[in-house]
């Protein structure tokens, strides 16, 4: 694995170029261009607020500002996660001419897909920051946890992306299965609601590493409290583990890609 990482570092220029390519082609020949990167997350947040409104209307509670903010904070990383996985799964198969014709560490392809989505996340986070300044949310010392939580998010996404990209190369069934799971995933992940509202089911919400990551983000940014250290540790272990497993499996199967694609 050390060797695989070393080779990736050697090919970092390629990683950078592929990321740039993935970002560029997404907005080529689109009149609005990069504005889509801002517009899409706003739509996602709006959808979340709408659902919250509907839930509030049914239950009779009023929607408070905090829950709206909490939705925006959680929707953005969730969008990053699903679009990364979607792009990563297709990254090897979609570049089959590269995989069969040219040698380079194949891990750059899914990594670049994730990185391109990370770029989108960065843009939407900037927009969110501006909005948060207007609503005078305020910050606490606990916001310093965010970089670590984001790192877990990235590691988990990357690891899973590598694993699924390799699996999809051998069995195209994987992309359909992933699509189904991602579609239903939003119901089983505390994106539009809080894990706490689920009562005894809370534990299942948090066993999903995405759930515990999103909850930790919510706690440190919106609720201005210490993230739940137990669950954060759990998320960290799972993320690092997922990254290592992803890298190892990907690396061990890399040699078979060209002839099995």
């Amino acid at each position: 694995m050390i060797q695989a990482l070393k080779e990736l570092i050697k090919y970092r220029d390629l990683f950078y170029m592929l990321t740039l390519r993935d970002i560029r082609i997404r907005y080529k020949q689109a009149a609005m261009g990069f504005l889509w990167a801002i517009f899409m997350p706003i739509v996602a947040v709006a959808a979340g607020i709408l659902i919250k409104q509907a839930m509030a209307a049914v239950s009779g509670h009023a929607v408070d500002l905090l829950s709206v903010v909490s939705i925006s904070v959680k929707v953005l990383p969730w969008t990053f996660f699903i679009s990364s996985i979607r792009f990563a799964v297709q990254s090897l198969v979609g570049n089959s001419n590269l995989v069969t014709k040219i040698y380079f560490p194949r891990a750059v392809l899914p990594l670049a897909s994730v990185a391109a989505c990370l770029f989108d996340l960065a843009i939407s986070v900037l927009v969110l920051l501006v909005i948060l300044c207007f609503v005078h949310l305020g910050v606490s010392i606990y916001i310093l946890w965010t970089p670590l939580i984001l790192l877990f998010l990235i590691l988990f996404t990357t690891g899973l992306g590598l694993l699924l990209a390799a699996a999809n190369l051998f069995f195209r069934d994987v992309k359909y299965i992933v699509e189904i799971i991602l579609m239903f995933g939003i119901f089983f992940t505390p994106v539009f609601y809080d894990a706490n509202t689920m009562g005894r089911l809370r534990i299942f919400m948090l066993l999903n590493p995405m759930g515990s990551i999103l909850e930790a983000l919510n706690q440190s940014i919106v609720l201005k409290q210490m993230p739940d250290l137990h669950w954060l540790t759990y998320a960290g272990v799972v993320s690092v583990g997922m990254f290592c497993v992803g890298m190892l499996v990907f690396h061990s199967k890399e040699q078979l890609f060209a002839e099995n694609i």
Partner: protein
Amino acid sequence: MKNAVEFNGVWKKFKKGEKFDSLRDFIPNFFKNLIHKNENIALNESEFWAVKDVNFTIPKGGVVGVMGPNGAGKSTILKLLSGIMSPTKGKMTINGRLSALIEVTAGFHPELTGRENVYLNGTILGMKSREIDRKFDEIVAFSEVEDFIDTPVKRYSSGMYSRLGFSVAAHMDPEILVVDEVLSVGDIAFQSKCAQKMRELLGSGATILLVSHQISLIQSLCKRVLLLHHGELIKDGPTEEVIPYYQNITFKKNEEDFKHKVKSEQGKVKINQDLLIEISNVVLYGKDLKPKEEFAVGEDFEIKVDYNAKQEIPDPIVIIDIIRSDGVLCCSLN
């Protein structure tokens, strides 16, 4: 001095047909392989050897041509060399920075501009961004697409497309260069420019492996040729010595096809019913008056032509044309 490339008994197995491992077979095998790497190399009925026990070494600075009919395993060997695939069995050693020109435009993305693609393709082929910065003007000038460098390549003509691809690839400075039939792009002027570039590389002391069907190109660039046939290395030696073998193999295939055709048509074809004679058989004899089909250079032979005449012909005139399989008339006897 270490060898640039060494192949020791390299074998490579491929699958035939559309079958792939079903999940039911794959999952147990996957875990079995995790536990102990079993070197199961026996051939299934749906598998075949694309490369069979190939041994060769190329010293640093050597320029070697690789020839063989289609399906001989040339490209597989290059793919093994460049690391795209790994051998089923055997050992390869490579000393030095290797670049493979297997398909130079594979890295292009149609939506990106020429400029963006130069960077993208360059890094895919293993260059550093800074290296490309330095060589960018040179690359563009070589490809002759200066005016369109900021146009998306999907708008390029196919010639411009492959010229730009080749230019990027040609401006790497590898220690070992592996080239697969990519020199035949562009018009004649561009092709001679490519050959010129190859010679420059030769002068720089790079080790080159060149796959090509163009005999003249191999002759002008390589001193040594590896001849492959059905995945086996059947000849390894000086260019002039190996090329006749290559021609022999390729023509033999044509000849067999021809014979097959003749056999299947025999008895069915009536040349022209209005003709007064009908040729029933043609046999070639060696000096010893035995039927023979292969002749050495300078050997005498006899041709026996059987014909049936429908009426008596007092002074028959026989004309024999010998025509090569590619349609060139070699001689005409009267």
